[in-house]
């Protein structure tokens, strides 16, 4: 158990490409942090720097009170779950789980105890003597988590652990990871490109873009007060509408702001509403429908209940507190 501190952390590759820059963050003991962003945003690089698999060119990583910049991965007291699981194919599940403990000279009895305990927690007891190739994707995922658990490390690092699973299994495993982390209270750093995964798992999430931190906050903070148009467009599904204010001149405050953000669920059909929307297409989702269209040349999406009447033209309104205002040039949130 330990806190993790990232202090002005940065990575510049030998060619001069900057993958990550100026990351400052304090991760409390037992906290579940999710790094989220589109592919190529540097989230995996950041995680691998904490793991020790990628060298640190700027700043510091501290695990507990110890600066670990030059500490070998094995000595950082962390465990990592890889995207492709990275299970050793020639070893049985039991050997896979025990390998890290064996290398550290843990006694046989202790290894057996911890492996059995982890197998119990993850319900993989009946697979212990099988080879990884005889397991399904979900079972392999559990074994990979088991390999992290048995080590009882200071921190878990997850590198997109669910992205190789099918949609249904992903939802189930997401829940299990959440429960597991609650139970073990181990500091966790979790990388994903899936904003839904980020929202549901995180105590706090870190939105990254182009190697820079866009925003750090609890899922609700980030959802309610996105710090930039990038965050606004990335977190939340369907994405927030980002409309140039001249396309919606009748909304309150639109005179000052460059870009107005409105979540699709915050727009309601209102015969007297200030926004006129030309409907282009409707996506039926069962419980709700997504209506796509445009107003004064700006794209617009709204979510409506499945019983709402549809016309070619809809008039819409939004509560003043549901409007987000962003600077047109920097994309930053305006107060």
């Amino acid at each position, binding site marked *: 158990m330990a806190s993790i501190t990232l202090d002005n952390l940065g990575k510049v590759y030998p060619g001069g490409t900057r993958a990550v820059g100026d990351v400052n963050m304090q991760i409390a003991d037992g906290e579940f942090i999710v790094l989220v962003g589109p592919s190529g945003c540097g989230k995996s690089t950041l995680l691998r720097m904490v793991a020790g698999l990628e060298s640190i060119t700027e700043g510091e990583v501290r695990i507990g009170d110890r600066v670990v910049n030059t500490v070998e*991965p094995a000595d950082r007291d962390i465990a990592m779950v*890889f995207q492709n699981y990275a299970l050793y194919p*020639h070893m049985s599940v039991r050997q896979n789980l025990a390998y890290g403990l064996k290398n*550290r000279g843990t006694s046989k009895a202790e290894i057996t105890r911890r492996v059995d305990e982890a197998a119990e927690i993850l319900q993989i007891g009946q697979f212990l003597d099988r080879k990884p190739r005889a397991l399904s994707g979900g079972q392999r995922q559990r074994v990979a988590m088991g*390999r992290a658990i048995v080590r009882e490390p200071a921190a878990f690092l997850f590198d997109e652990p669910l992205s190789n699973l099918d949609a249904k299994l992903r939802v189930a495993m997401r829940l299990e990871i959440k429960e597991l982390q609650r139970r073990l209270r181990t500091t966790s750093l979790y990388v994903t490109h899936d904003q839904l995964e980020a929202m549901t798992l995180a105590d706090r999430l870190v939105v990254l873009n182009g190697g820079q931190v866009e925003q750090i906050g609890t899922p609700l903070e980030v959802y309610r007060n996105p710090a930039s148009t990038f965050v606004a467009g990335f977190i939340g599904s369907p994405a927030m509408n980002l409309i140039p204010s001249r396309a919606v001149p009748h909304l309150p405050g639109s005179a000052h702001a460059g870009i107005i953000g409105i979540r699709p669920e915050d727009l309601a059909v209102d015969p007297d509403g200030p926004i006129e929307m030309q409907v282009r297409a409707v996506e039926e989702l069962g419980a709700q429908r997504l209506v796509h269209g445009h107003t004064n040349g700006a794209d617009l999406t709204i979510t409506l209940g499945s019983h709402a009447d549809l016309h070619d033209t809809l008039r819409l309104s939004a509560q003043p507190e549901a409007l987000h205002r962003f600077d047109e040039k920097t994309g930053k949130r305006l107060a």
Partner: protein
Amino acid sequence: MKRTIFSNQLLPWLLLAPQLAITFIFFLWPAGQAIKQSFLREDAFGINSSFVGLANFTALLDSPEYLNSLKVTAVFAISVTVVSMGVALLLAVAVDRMLKSSRTYTTLLVWPYAVAPAVAGILWWFIFNPTVGVMPYVLEVIGYDWNHISSKTDAMILVVIASAWKQISYNFLFFVAGLQAIPASMREAAAIDGAGPVRRFFDITFPLLSPTTFFLLVVNIVYSMFETFAVIDATTEGGPAQATNIMVYKVYFDGFIGQNLGSSAAQSVILMLIVISLTVIQFRWVEKKVEY
């Protein structure tokens, strides 16, 4: 796999014909001739031959020279295989850890494979030549008197080096490909699991390379038993005192120089049986332990 149904019965045979012809003319027919010849004894002038049953075989197994050749072949084949695969693996691991210039390095290492065995033999024969070679000169500095013309051990070392050298390139290519097929995350996981570089190699990399290693084992043993004829012929000619007279060279020497065709044929039949059974053993038992 796509299955093609031929409506014409002749066409598939026509397409197979070139390969079948090569197999028949260069393998089946000579092998058949050898088997036939191994039961015959020819007179001194090559005019008459008489059926002698297994006499050629029993004579061989009673001959100390032939038994020596068996032993020499075993030592030679094992040494060539171990040296060429060991060095190749070492080089491949070095390249795998290399970020820059690994391409240049790889290209240079592959060149020896383009050298004909006889040329390779002569090359090493010059390098190790007791009078003009550079290696004996260097060895003399450290106090070793190299002479493969009189020393049996030196002669064996020479032919092993000359034969293994060429094969290193081939093995190297396969090992590099094999290493690159192992996901980096596997080694990273092992590094996080507390395994140092050496441990990582023996616990993770080497077992995962085993399909490649197994394949190369078969190829190298067959190579060292059959294809090293030119190396031996260009360097030691089986000498000194039969020390490097491996079976395939003895087949040639007894048959074409000694003109004892019956015995030569019997030897090649035995050699064929040995290689067939070695390959069967390797596929039956070793393959079961291989992790695919």
